[in-house]
């Protein structure tokens, strides 16, 4: 047993840290560190900066443009990005459709799409969920009928993250309605500019526009946009769902947010003392800090055993990771108390430099708390994750 990073890993960490110090634009960093909302341009800008460095797709093989890092190096990179407060690289292109393209796409598809993903020429979104499917993904109803060299797609997707910015969507569609649930599903790539596609915003409880419904009304999709074999889409979907989920725990971000929480609590007062010096509040913060310490080691244990494919342990990381994130946002709101009540979208969107109440740290926190309620629901709800642990690990 040896829990120290190797000298090589430490050098790598220093390299990443130095790079982020100089290349992360301060306006983007400010937004991330202060829980403000990112625009499309913010995401694209950071994506392209990393792409230029060759670091935008840490999980990709070198042949496709990946940096050739070990699992530990990828972990270090994620940690350092979280620590510095970079915008996220949205997963839909780089981490979701790209691995499917590499594994099951044909040469033309790979040659066309992969470079465009790296350069963020295409903004991808994910067409999995449908109204009524929820955790039962395979119950999807969107229909694709083959007509010669194209499909006609009809149906509806929902919870489509940032579809309002998207150029492309990868979709699960039903190509054989008579087959059993998981069979008869195909994996299609669809250009969002195709006639017949309508995107309707779903406004979240923090009034952010983050997800959408996407309607398909006789949308014509070339057969060349089919991935792999018709009716085998469920296999590809499962491959995608199982891919690259260690950072699901988001320990790096949790560590950064813990420091934010302490800073904010240190400035708040309880009966004339700093709130962080209040034993009751400090005990809650300490318990959460310890949970984060534990999860960091649990993540490293999973990575160190990793055969490339994460097992059902990913469910543990997802549950604990989201619980920690939610607890952090909950304690942030507790820390600022009544100053969490004001709602200031103009400040959140960056349209004003300061919040209307002049409490800039506090202003975004209730929105942030509300926003994070989704994390125990999406990506397979935490209840579904417990079902997975029950069945796959405990054998019940």
């Amino acid at each position, binding site marked *: 047993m040896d829990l120290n990073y190797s000298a090589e890993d430490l050098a790598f960490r220093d390299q990443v840290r130095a790079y982020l110090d100089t290349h992360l634009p301060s306006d983007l960093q400010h937004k991330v560190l202060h829980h403000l909302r990112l625009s499309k341009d913010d995401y694209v800008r950071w994506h392209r900066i990393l792409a230029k460095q060759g670091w935008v797709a840490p999980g990709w093989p070198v042949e496709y443009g990946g940096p050739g890092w070990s699992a530990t190096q990828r972990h270090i990179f994620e940690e350092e990005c979280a620590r510095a407060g970079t915008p996220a690289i949205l997963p839909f292109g780089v981490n979701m459709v790209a691995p499917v393209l590499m594994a099951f796409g044909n040469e033309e598809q790979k040659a066309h799409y992969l470079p465009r993903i790296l350069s963020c020429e295409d903004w991808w979104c994910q067409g999995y*969920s449908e109204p*009524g499917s*929820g*955790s*039962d993904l395979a*119950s999807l109803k969107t229909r694709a009928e083959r007509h010669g060299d194209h499909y006609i797609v009809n149906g509806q997707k*929902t*919870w489509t993250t940032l579809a309002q910015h998207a150029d492309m969507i990868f979709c699960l569609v039903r190509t054989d309605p008579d087959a059993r649930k998981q069979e008869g599903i195909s994996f299609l790539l669809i250009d969002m500019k195709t006639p017949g596609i309508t995107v309707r915003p*779903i*406004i*979240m*409880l*923090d*009034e952010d526009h983050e997800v959408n419904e996407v309607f398909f009304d006789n949308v014509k999709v070339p057969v060349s946009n089919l991935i792999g074999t018709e009716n085998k889409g469920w296999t590809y979907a499962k491959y995608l769902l199982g891919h690259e989920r260690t950072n699901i725990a988001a320990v790096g971000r949790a560590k950064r947010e813990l420091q934010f929480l302490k800073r904010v609590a240190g400035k*708040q*007062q*309880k*009966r*004339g003392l700093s*709130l962080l010096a209040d034993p*009751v*509040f400090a005990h809650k913060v300490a318990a959460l800090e310890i949970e984060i310490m534990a999860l960091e080691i649990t993540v490293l244990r999973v990575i160190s055993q990793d055969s490339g494919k994460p097992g059902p342990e990913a469910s543990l990381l997802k549950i604990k990771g989201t619980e920690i994130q939610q607890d952090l946002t909950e304690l942030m*709101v*507790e820390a600022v*108390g*009544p*100053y*969490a*009540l*004001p*709602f*200031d979208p103009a400040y959140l969107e960056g349209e004003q430099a300061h919040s*209307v*109440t*002049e*409490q800039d740290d506090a202003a975004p926190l*209730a*929105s942030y*708390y*509300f926003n994070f*309620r*989704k994390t*125990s*629901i*999406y990506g397979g*709800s935490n*209840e579904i994750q*417990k079902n997975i642990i029950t069945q796959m690990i405990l054998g019940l």
Partner: protein
Amino acid sequence: MNFDFSQEQIQFADALHRWANQDYQFEQRKHIIQSASGTSDDAWAALTELGALALPVPEDQGGFNGSAVDMLVLMQELGRALVVEPYFATVFAAEFLKLAKAHFDILEQVAAGQTKLAAALYEAQSRHEAYDIKTTVTANADGYVLNGKKTVVIHGAQADQLIVSARAGGDQLAAKGIMLFLVDARSPGVSRRDYRTLDGMRAADISFDQVQLPAIALLGREDGGADLLDAALDYGITLLCAEAVGIMEATIAATLEYLKTRQQFGVPIGKFQVLQHRMADMYMEMEQARSMATLAAVKQSSANVQERRRTVSAAKVRVGQAARLIGQQAVQLHGGMGVTNELPVAHMFKRLTMIELSLGDTDHHLARFIAQSDFAAA
């Protein structure tokens, strides 16, 4: 011993319920929130006509002299409908006048729905501590001069008159030196900054810059400010607890309905035992919260101040705990739909969250409960 509501109370609740079902539905409420003022004159008129404004006002000022239990019934109904009007702000502030037995004209206007009030108590540094006051008051020949700033005053910009706490002396956290005033919101030197709150209401930051007040603006005795503040806060907390219980009922009803209709893996999701037991937990939380909200209302009239304080703080704690569990789990059980702004459940969750943070949060009231002498007297 008898926990039943009276016939009058039930009829009153029914009338409010019918009004909300008819004229204050989810879509109507949404339009009110999105409007410039964030409140509805029609709704205010309806509440006035229903007697909601007159209810807490003494009979001599044209009211019904309603008890805290009467108000419990009323606030539960307003909670159920997620009413965003400045009703709580007004009747909470009116309690200061009732306790001070002063400004009967204002109380008459409240009862008639002609005046809205708000209580401007907390400041940028005070967090949950209402005694933590930096706003200053000094006496002069014409009465008093007020200087300072109040923050997150619920419906502060919609109010005609403000109750303002200020410090005439004493340390920043001391009970001694606190005084309370009635201030016309349009007085020279008063400036207000209106903004939305996350639960669909409005609040304001209010500055007082050399605001001259007449001598009669002082509420109660010069040295009675802290006791008045304490008693009125306990009344306000009791109202919030009642409102929260109403919201919990609506939240649980909505979630049950969802569990019974939403299908997954071929069955209603309410058939999954884990979700069933989660609902059972929510139900039990609600019943415990209801018990404490009821007890707080009953103990409002207690002559024993200690008993009132500990019961009200206990109620705020228990309601706050229930509010958090029920709000979070209702959203969780609604799945993706729960985190959108499109269903009432998200709005219930947000209001429950904000109630938890208002007039002292759970930890604040646990500490207050412990500070009462009964606690250690084992």
